[in-house]
């Protein structure tokens, strides 16, 4: 069995079918009307065309064609999502894996994905699902209430919409977040932030935290490596902040492509100026995959240089990721510099927070701490 098959079967089936979420074994590739709902964000055009209004790409789609994401289809002039509740991957992850470090540390996130993505990052670690069309993957029908129930059964504090791009299954995210909230389960979104204002606003009304993968701080990178655009993502970050939803930023540092001092300095300055110094920024290590196999993993000194630059610019919470055991996995109080949350990989090794404040100097530490495990 190859990696793709393993991902399709090992990840999906044990969690969902064993939990009784789906109809027997995972639904085969055939069309299934349960997964098809009319899209919420689009406009009709002459000659049975539609214009998608979900992401800044604004695909204009002919009858019987799909948008760039591959999961939305024009059928006779009406636009449909083909991935409503069409879960192809599910896992119970520590929230630190997202990573969200200031969101109920030590809690579990019931993490799900569908097929599809609205960009095509050459370094994608999950390209087997993100770049696939829904009918190419084995999926299970998990309606919103069922998803909320599964999360509760798994003792997960949150549902995480992750692995692929949640923007492209927006209708499901909105309904599942409502169902989760009614069941006492939070929702977190892991996204590239390539989304239009209106769907973002709807999402922000319902979810509790959003982690944005900021792929680079250069338009050239976004154009050549991502097939997206930087200004749209920066706009999203600012809008999330304005809507008052907790957010963290991950920046995957790729040797030679987005790791120059100037770019990192520009990034840190923008974050501090536009979002504030308290927004956590994670510099994570790149591993070669998909269409970027010609570059080595990020050297540790590069990550440490990135952190030093962001620290020097005045950001309070700068982390290093994908380097288990590194001291920069910990959260430090910006005032007394003591460790307030100690991490070992995805595990919480110690907590010195008291109702959101540093136990040593009472400095407030921003985040959502309700339910934090005290060790």
């Amino acid at each position: 069995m190859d990696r793709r098959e393993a991902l399709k079967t090992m990840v999906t089936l044990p969690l969902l079918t064993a939990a009784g979420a789906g109809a027997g074994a995972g639904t085969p590739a055939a069309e299934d009307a349960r997964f098809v709902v009319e899209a919420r964000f689009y406009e009709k055009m002459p000659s049975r065309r539609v214009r998608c209004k979900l992401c800044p790409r604004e695909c204009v789609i002919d009858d019987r064609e799909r948008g760039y994401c591959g999961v939305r289809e024009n059928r006779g002039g009406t636009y449909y999502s083909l991935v409503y509740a069409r879960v192809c991957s599910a896992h119970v992850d520590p929230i630190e894996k997202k990573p969200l470090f200031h969101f109920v540390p030590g809690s579990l996130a019931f993490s799900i994905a569908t097929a599809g993505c609205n960009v095509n990052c050459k370094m994608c670690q999950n390209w087997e699902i993100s770049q696939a069309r829904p009918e190419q993957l084995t999926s299970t029908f998990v309606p919103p209430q069922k998803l909320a129930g599964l999360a509760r059964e798994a003792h997960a504090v949150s549902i995480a919409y992750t692995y692929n791009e949640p923007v492209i299954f927006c209708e499901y995210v909105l309904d599942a977040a409502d169902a989760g909230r009614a069941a006492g389960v939070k929702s977190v979104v892991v996204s590239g932030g390539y989304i239009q204002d209106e769907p973002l606003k709807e999402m922000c009304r319902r979810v509790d935290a959003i982690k944005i993968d900021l792929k680079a701080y250069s338009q050239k990178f976004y154009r050549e490596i991502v097939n997206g655009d930087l200004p749209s993502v920066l706009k999203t970050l600012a809008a999330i902040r304005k809507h008052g939803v907790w957010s963290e930023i991950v920046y995957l540092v790729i040797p030679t492509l987005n790791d120059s001092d100037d770019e990192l300095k520009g990034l840190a300055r923008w974050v501090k100026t536009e979002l504030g110094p308290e927004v956590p920024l994670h510099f994570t290590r790149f591993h070669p995959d998909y269409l970027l196999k010609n570059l080595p993993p990020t050297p540790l000194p590069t990550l440490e240089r990135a952190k030093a630059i962001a620290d020097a610019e005045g950001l309070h919470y700068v982390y290093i990721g994908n380097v288990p055991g590194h001291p920069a996995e910990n959260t430090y109080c910006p005032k007394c510099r003591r460790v307030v949350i100690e991490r070992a990989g995805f595990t919480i090794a110690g907590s010195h927070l008291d109702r959101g404040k540093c136990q040593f100097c009472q400095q407030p530490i921003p985040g959502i701490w309700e339910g934090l495990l005290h060790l």
Partner: protein
Amino acid sequence: MLTERKSGTTRRGLLRACLAGALACPAPAQAKSRVVIARDADNAVDSARLLALLDRAVQAVFGADSPIEAWKKLARPGEVVGLKVNCLAGRGPASTSPTLVEAICERLQQAGIRAGDLVVWDRLDSDLESAGFRPSTRSGRIRTIGNDQAGYESDLATFGEAGSLLATTLTRTCDAIVNLPVLKDHGIAGVTMALKNFFGAVHNPNKYHSNSGDPYVADVYMLPPIRRKVRLHICDALAPQYEGGPSLMPHWSWPFHGLIASRDPVALDYTGWQIIERKRAEKGMPTLRAARREPAYIARAADAQHRLGTNDPGLIDKVEI
């Protein structure tokens, strides 16, 4: 002692003769790419007339005296021949004509290819069905199968900006491919014909429509199983569409009653593009460049990195019959 001089050609003489010969004879002309435009004057192209049209087109491409001889140049008995149709637009002239496919299957069988070694394929069983083909994998019969049923490779094939999983019908089942696109306008890529039809061989065609398909169309075609296995292109131009494609828009199609055949996909696409442009001009429509969807991928396919054929009109031997 006299040294006897060797008789016959000396080294210097040989060089001199070679140089003289080279100068005397013109350099061999760069081979032209033949594109055959076969048209029927009749307004109703029935199956018999379509078969005759096909015969004229294929004979002209191969310079053969008979249709069977032409098809024998394309494939040998024992080889599995795939017919890559284009079915996305459903039933009607914006999809490959099932009657044309029947005619090709008939001739290939007469050329010694077993029915069980013929495979009609496209992306989805449902697309094939909606265009009038009946999906079937019965042994010993002509197979008709969508990639969704046959599956895709699990390893990425890459070239340039393309990174895709290829349909196993292309990679494993077929030895040779006859490409059967449709001549039509495309709302994003400008036009869609021979080169772009192989978006139906990859798992992620939706990723390749940015920038009017440039360079993606050319890059996808460079993936080795495509480049290596395609032996002939026969473009269905019975009722092409000059606007509103790739969906079927009958009010923007016109009766051309033609087939365009070539072994050079770039030359075919260039020729088809010009036909579409002429029709657009006749109808008072802007050029595809003015409409901001000029098919730049055709020139890309001809460039030094791709060399998939020629888009130079001076190197296209256009034969109208």
